[in-house]
């Protein structure tokens, strides 16, 4: 098989995607390991290699004597054709073993538009698509990640879904699979046992009934031993959590091709549209000492020239100044640069960025998200106009000349004035740049990037309707016209793509038929513009007899049962509803990290707390 692979490689694009043998990859003796798990990423090698969660799980699993983890990515279209011609199944990178020979295949659910790739990967591996069609001859197909809080469109394809922090569950899962193999349990018996592990959801044990209107009537478990509601698992103390001391260094350039450390997990700023800000609660920070140790170890074992301090909002890390200054000093000696992936909208963050990025090669990015104070209050994005101006002023003064501004359109309560607000902010930022930057030097550039708001499960806006596609296009045009001047670059997210994302984000099991049909029709790599075929998707909805607008455009009733009602991130439905009410009243909610608990219930129900490293006036 390897020989066959080697022969087709010269004919495919970026062959190094498929060759493996990268530095720090882990190769174990296939026959000597009891449980074999493939970590499957439903996108290209370059995208998948940048995923930190994968690196953590790869490390944890391979540390065990009795288990191995290998990687598999979605082959690019040209490779798929060659594989078909040569009759090659999808194989894992490290051993070259067919995916079908593993005990477990674990997919990551990062993005709704990668669902089609998951099914396509099963097809390429020759694994039956449906959970009901698979017995012990086939691997368990499991999944985890942010879309796991509503995996229902994939419910028929997946054997189980892990909710919450994977490092908490993975050990129990491997143990169970190992013993069930030893005891030769049937697939059904194994799944029943898996369902008893806290945080593990087995879709087949829940039955969904629908009303005549098409909404959900009941979600009932079909086995008494499984929980009524599955609650996510949480790492209580991130500082003690396992983290890799070596990371795979790819031969070809990938996304985030650098040392990555996870400064903290969770964010409690409480932006009402943001799923990550709800599902990863509470905030758990690593200590400066641990982070420094991890960075130096990883630099030694990889030779990388760059370090990235990742989290949802690294500027909020309570010891950020100390961490950045000390790391930058240490790294400078080694010719290594440090980068902050996410900047808060304030001058403090700009000062930090200035400190570490002596060379202002790329622009600075800020996300005010909405154009007026009114709308920012609605979405609880607690950024004031002055904060933005101060931040960009500091950035221009420090020598940056390119500013990127992120906004969302189609937010609840949005009016045309809010769009004027976006244009005004952008114009004022450009004006500040013109005043600040020396006349004879580089001219300021403001990139305005506009995404369409997609209501996500588990957020205060989970009840909202997705804005009509025509209206979104009109709004994009409206902004494009206002920003058609030298100094601006305007870009807007593809509307049909967002529409499909909106359908699947809050979809239910009935969408499984659509997914299967769409893949049959040739849909894959939907997140890639050059491959996205909206017409084929609409065809698939039609064939399955399902109205996509029902999922995208319908505002949900206050008491409607959601397809994910039985899956919990720990944030209570009452809290989300209250937050939605406050949104419509324009009342903001404070960050519980720096103020009192605002009652989302994660801490009480999961017995955890925000764990900060002190500083910034906490405790």
């Amino acid at each position, binding site marked *: 098989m390897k020989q066959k692979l080697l022969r087709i490689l010269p004919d495919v694009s970026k062959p190094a995607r498929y060759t493996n043998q990268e530095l720090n990859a882990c190769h174990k003796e296939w026959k000597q390991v009891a449980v074999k798990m493939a970590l499957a990423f439903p996108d290209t090698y370059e995208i998948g290699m940048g995923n930190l969660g994968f690196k953590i799980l790869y490390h944890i699993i391979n540390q065990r004597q009795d288990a191995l983890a290998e990687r598999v990515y979605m082959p690019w279209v040209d490779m798929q054709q060659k594989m078909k011609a040569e009759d090659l199944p999808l194989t894992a990178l490290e051993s070259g073993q067919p995916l079908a020979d593993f005990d477990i295949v674990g997919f990551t659910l990062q993005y709704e538009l990668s669902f089609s790739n998951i099914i396509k990967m099963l097809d390429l591996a020759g694994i039956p698509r449906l959970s009901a069609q698979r017995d012990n001859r086939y691997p368990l197909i499991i999944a985890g990640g942010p879309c796991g809080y509503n995996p229902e469109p994939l419910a028929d394809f997946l054997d189980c879904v892990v909710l919450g922090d994977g490092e908490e569950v993975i050990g129990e899962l491997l143990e169970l699979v190992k013993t069930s193999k030893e005891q030769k349990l049937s697939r059904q018996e194994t799944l029943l046992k898996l369902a008893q592990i806290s945080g593990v959801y087995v879709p087949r044990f829940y039955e969904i009934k629908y009303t005549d209107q098409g909404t959900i009537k009941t979600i009932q478990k079909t086995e008494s031993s499984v929980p009524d509601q599955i609650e996510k698992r949480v790492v209580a103390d991130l500082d003690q959590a396992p983290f890799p001391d070596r990371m795979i*260094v790819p*031969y070809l350039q990938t996304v985030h091709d650098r040392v990555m450390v996870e400064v903290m997990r969770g964010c409690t700023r409480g932006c009402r549209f943001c799923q990550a800000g709800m599902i990863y609660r509470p905030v758990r920070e690593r200590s400066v000492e641990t982070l420094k140790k991890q960075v130096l170890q990883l630099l030694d074992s990889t030779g990388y020239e760059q370090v990235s301090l990742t989290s949802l909002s690294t500027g909020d890390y309570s010891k950020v100044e100390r961490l950045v200054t000390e790391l930058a000093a240490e790294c400078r000696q080694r010719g290594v640069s440090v980068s902050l992936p996410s900047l808060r909208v304030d001058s403090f963050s700009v000062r930090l960025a200035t400190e570490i990025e002596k060379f202002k090669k790329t622009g600075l990015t800020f996300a005010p998200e909405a154009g007026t104070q009114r709308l920012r209050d609605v979405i609880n994005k607690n950024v004031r106009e002055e904060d933005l101006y101060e931040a960009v002023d500091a950035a221009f003064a420090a020598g940056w000349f390119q500013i990127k501004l992120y906004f969302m359109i189609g937010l609840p309560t949005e009016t045309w004035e809010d769009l004027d607000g976006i244009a005004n902010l952008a114009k004022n930022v450009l004006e500040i740049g013109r005043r600040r930057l020396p006349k004879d030097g580089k001219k300021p550039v403001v990139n305005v990037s506009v995404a369409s708001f997609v209501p996500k499960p588990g957020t205060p806006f989970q009840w909202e309707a997705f804005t009509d596609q025509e209206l979104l296009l009109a709004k994009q045009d409206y902004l494009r016209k206002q920003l058609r001047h030298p100094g601006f670059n305007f870009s807007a997210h593809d509307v049909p793509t967002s529409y499909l994302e909106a359908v699947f984000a809050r979809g239910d099991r009935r969408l499984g038929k659509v997914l299967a049909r769409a893949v049959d029709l040739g849909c894959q790599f939907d997140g890639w513009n050059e491959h996205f075929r909206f017409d084929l998707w609409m065809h698939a909805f039609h064939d399955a007899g399902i109205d996509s607008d029902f999922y995208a455009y319908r505002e949900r009733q206050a008491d409607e049962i959601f397809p994910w009602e039985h899956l919990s991130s720990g944030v209570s439905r009452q809290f989300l509803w209250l937050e939605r009410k406050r949104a419509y009243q324009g009342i903001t909610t404070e960050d519980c990290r720096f103020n009192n608990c605002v009652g989302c219930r994660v801490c009480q129900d999961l017995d955890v707390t925000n764990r900060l490293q002190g500083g910034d006036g906490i405790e």
Partner: protein
Amino acid sequence: MGLSNNVRLRFGVGEPGRFISHLDILRLMGRAIRRAQLPIAYSQGFSPTPKLAFASTLPVGVTSEAEYVDLQLQTSLDCETVKSRLNAVLPDGFQILEAAALPVKYPALMSLITTACYQIRTLGEVSDLEPRITDLLAKDVLMVSVKRKQKEQQANIRSLIDKMAYDALNQQIELQCASGVKANLRPMDLLPLLGLELRDVLIHRTALLIKAEADQLLTPFDVLKG
């Protein structure tokens, strides 16, 4: 031999290293040097880059035993130490084969290289390659389409071929051709003229050479002995 601030290395590229681009190799060497904790010198300026100078870009898909790179170090090191420390940390498909000290001043390697030698091994039986080669060499004009700056172009490559012969015993073509900044032939561009496809062959670079006086061919290590 001996201590030096400037070291010339010859390295080999095998599987799976042959599948990556020159830019990838550059990055890979930089990272290996960091892991080996060699005191490499960095360029001045805002974004410091390690001082590495390669002799040539190896076409993707080609293996080699004749790649060269010059390193500039901040302190003197024994050449053999540099070699062994790098070999301890290089990923599969890369190996340092030889190391030598460079004088304080030396010309950029890339500007010197004029010639390369390749072995093109055919996978499986290919008959009448020998007459096909004789035919080719008898012609004055050999037009092939080559990619230059993303565009397909027709070019006459006859003058770029120095020697070509078929070694029937080993089922491989021995090719000596122009290589370098002035004139360059990518061996794969020749394949269509021979009725071959990239997937039918394995191409291996055996030498990178410098044309000296009286058309004498020297390796980048020979010139140091001068």
